[in-house]
């Protein structure tokens, strides 16, 4: 898990949210609603019942009519972090990276006054309580610390069942090793008015597996075994399948305005991962 010193370095950063906040409680993120912030928005004529404190007396002096000054309302955004906690994430530090990313994003969101929910996905869906404020940071860290990757995950079945706020931001952290694909899962997030992002976590071994001769591969999620001879041709076919997955996922996200970021589990979280998140436009 990330240490306190590193988290303090994140104070200058905020989670980037492209659409204005909508429907949330009052917060620090600009919304489409008009409210009480210091940011001027418009004028309108006074109507009975309006708050007399908002009458622009200068305008009354000039036009001899009563006008109200309208200001932007600042609301909070609900950030949903969907964390793949299936057994396939246990390999080669993938889950540790996913935990750190989740903690980093939760910290940034909470520092920005947003509400955060972390939901773990494997055989079951386990959401954290809605977190906010400084106490939410501690609860998020505690929630993440207790997680252990296990079980099998079918993304397209699990993601649509995750409870989400009306509008918000959904960040899915997964290795995409799901037999039913990922497209429907991401589509469901958009359908439910979420600004979706995909953080694709892979291990270096998955990118370039080293196998020799005849081997029996055992699936860490299902326990299924498959015997094969690791030939040059087979490894080439694996690379082809891997790149089809990577390019497919990236292309899918780009075409739907989702943010896609691929990270390897041996990445330095405090430097490279942070830089990659910023480059991808997730933080700013």
């Amino acid at each position, binding site marked *: 898990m990330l240490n306190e010193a590193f988290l303090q370095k994140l104070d200058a950063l905020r989670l980037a949210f492209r659409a204005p906040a909508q429907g949330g409680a009052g917060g620090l993120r600009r919304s489409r609603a008009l409210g009480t912030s210091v940011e001027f928005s418009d004028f309108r004529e006074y109507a009975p019942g309006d708050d007399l404190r908002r009458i622009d007396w200068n305008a009354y002096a000039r036009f001899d009519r009563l006008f109200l000054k309208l200001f932007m309302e600042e609301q909070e955004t609900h950030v949903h972090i969907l964390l793949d906690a299936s*057994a*396939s*994430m*246990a*390999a*080669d530090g*993938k889950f540790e990276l996913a935990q750190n990313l989740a903690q980093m994003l939760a910290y940034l969101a909470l520092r920005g006054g947003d509400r955060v929910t972390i939901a773990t996905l494997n055989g079951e869906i386990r959401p954290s309580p809605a977190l906010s404020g400084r106490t939410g940071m501690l609860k998020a860290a505690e929630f993440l610390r207790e997680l252990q990757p296990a079980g099998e995950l079918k993304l397209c079945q699990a993601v649509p069942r995750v409870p989400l706020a009306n509008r918000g931001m959904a960040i899915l952290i997964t*290795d995409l*090793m*799901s*037999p039913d694909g990922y497209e429907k899962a991401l589509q469901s997030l958009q359908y439910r008015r979420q600004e979706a992002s995909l953080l694709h976590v892979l*291990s270096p071994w*998955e990118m370039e*597996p080293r*196998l*020799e*001769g*005849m*081997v*029996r*591969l*055992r*699936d*860490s*999620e*299902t326990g*299924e*075994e*498959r*015997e*094969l*001879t690791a*030939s*040059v*041709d*087979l490894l080439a*076919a*694996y690379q*082809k*399948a*891997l790149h*089809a*997955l990577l390019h497919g996922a990236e292309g899918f996200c780009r075409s739907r305005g989702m943010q896609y970021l691929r990270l390897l589990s041996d990445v330095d979280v405090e430097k490279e991962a942070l830089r990659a998140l910023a480059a991808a436009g997730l933080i700013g």
Partner: protein
Amino acid sequence: MHFLFPAGAWGFVSLGVITALYLLKRRSETVRVPSLLLWQRALAEQQAMKPFQKLKKNILYFLQMALAILLTLALMRPAISGGVQGETVMIFDLSASMQAEGRLEQAKERALNLIDGMKAGDRVTVLTASREAEIALSRSGDLSRVRSVIHGLTARNGGADLDAALSLAQAMGRDIEGLNILAFSDTFASDSAQVIPVGTPQSNRALLSLSVQNGQAFVRVANYGDAATVTLECEADGALCDAVTVALEADEVRSALLSVPENAQTVRVHIQEADALLTDNERWYAAREKGTYRAALCGDNVFLEKALSLRDDLTLLRTTAAEAASLENIDLYIFDGTLPESLPAQGTLLCVAPDRQVLDIGIGDKTEPASAIRAGLSGRAQSLTAHLLLEDIALRAYTPLTGGDAVLRIGGDSLIAVTEAENRRAAVIGFDLHDSNLPMKGDFPILMQNLLGFLLPDARQSFPDGVCGDSLNVPADAQVVTPSGRLAADSWEQGVYTVRYRVADGAERVARFTLHMDPGESDLRQIGGGASEIDLNTVRDAGRELTPWVLLAFLALALVEWEVSRRVA
């Protein structure tokens, strides 16, 4: 098809070993992976792209099984049946003419083709025919041994007694049922053997003789073929001294004279132009040092005196048996009748009708002859009776001799004998020359010269020029050096031989003689002895060992296996 080494089939055990190794190898290592998702897609992709992927998975196994099978087959030495079968005798003509245009190599090649298909139980005997018939290999079933012996055969410079070799083979055939006799020769023809002719008719030129006298070399050159012009070059002691061009008509023998230095020790004349047979294109002459020998003639025998006087290198001293021992430096003592009380300590002995034993030659009782005189059977007797007619020789009485080599025989008795005992040589004539008409015959001086050649071994007749392959008639302690400078073990080399030996007074003497290729081998125009109707079909069906081809296939497959294993790894 059959196998020359069926026990090699044990190699098939390796198939089981390979299979067992593969079964053991199939206990593959288990690797836990995050997900099989991508691997299943990769496998599906691979199988979709290559329908034979399943086969390829096991292709190394199949290739290695095929390699083991090929190697085992190679061990078993497969061969196509044919060629020699059962018991076979192969007679090889090693005469000088077989040197021409690689005839012997052709013969070897044909023979090797025939034995390639030998199978277990087949046996081959190799006989060689040169001056004598010899067994080079007796009834061998070992193909490699037969090959080795055949490869090692070389043509010699003499003639070939193929009849003797055939007789030897036929003698073997009496004990072996179904014996095949194959003769490889350029000239031989026989109804008793399957003769495989080798070579093609060729023109050839040859030098038949060379003599040198008074600064001139007299050479005879023969042309066995169409008209040709040849250049004869003459070297004296290694230096070119003369050359002459001789135009030869077809089948012509011509003489030519070449100038040589008077004191030349060795002269070599050769035909400059190469032809089918090179060995007979040169001829050698070796000058001889005339010895000065002293002979003591004891007794008064005009026949002996006359015969001995023919030798111009012999100084004849007339004396008596009693006084002979007092003479010094006598090389030869000739006693006619009575012997002295004690024989001289040194020098060789010629005793005519002695009254007692001479060295190991004993004297029998006086006997009247009952049959004709004939030559002895030993090699030495053959040499000492060379050129004798032995016809119409009358004899009144003789004393049978015992011991030594019988030179002349009458009935079962030895009439003239020679011996080499107590480090000296002796010849004994077992009858009084006056009791015979032999001294009146032309045979007498010849016989005496032959005996003198034996008793005075450096005389011209002792080391005569001859034909390669002749037996070397030299003293037991003599050292003979061949033209190439090695100690002579045989006489097949052509050129000048050097003999070092010691005479009666202990002095070392050196003599030279020349041996040449048998001139009868120079005519190369007739092949197969004229028997052109020989049925070659019976020998064309040669067997062939397939091992080299199997090994070739093994190597090719090994390369494929290497490439496949490299790709799989």
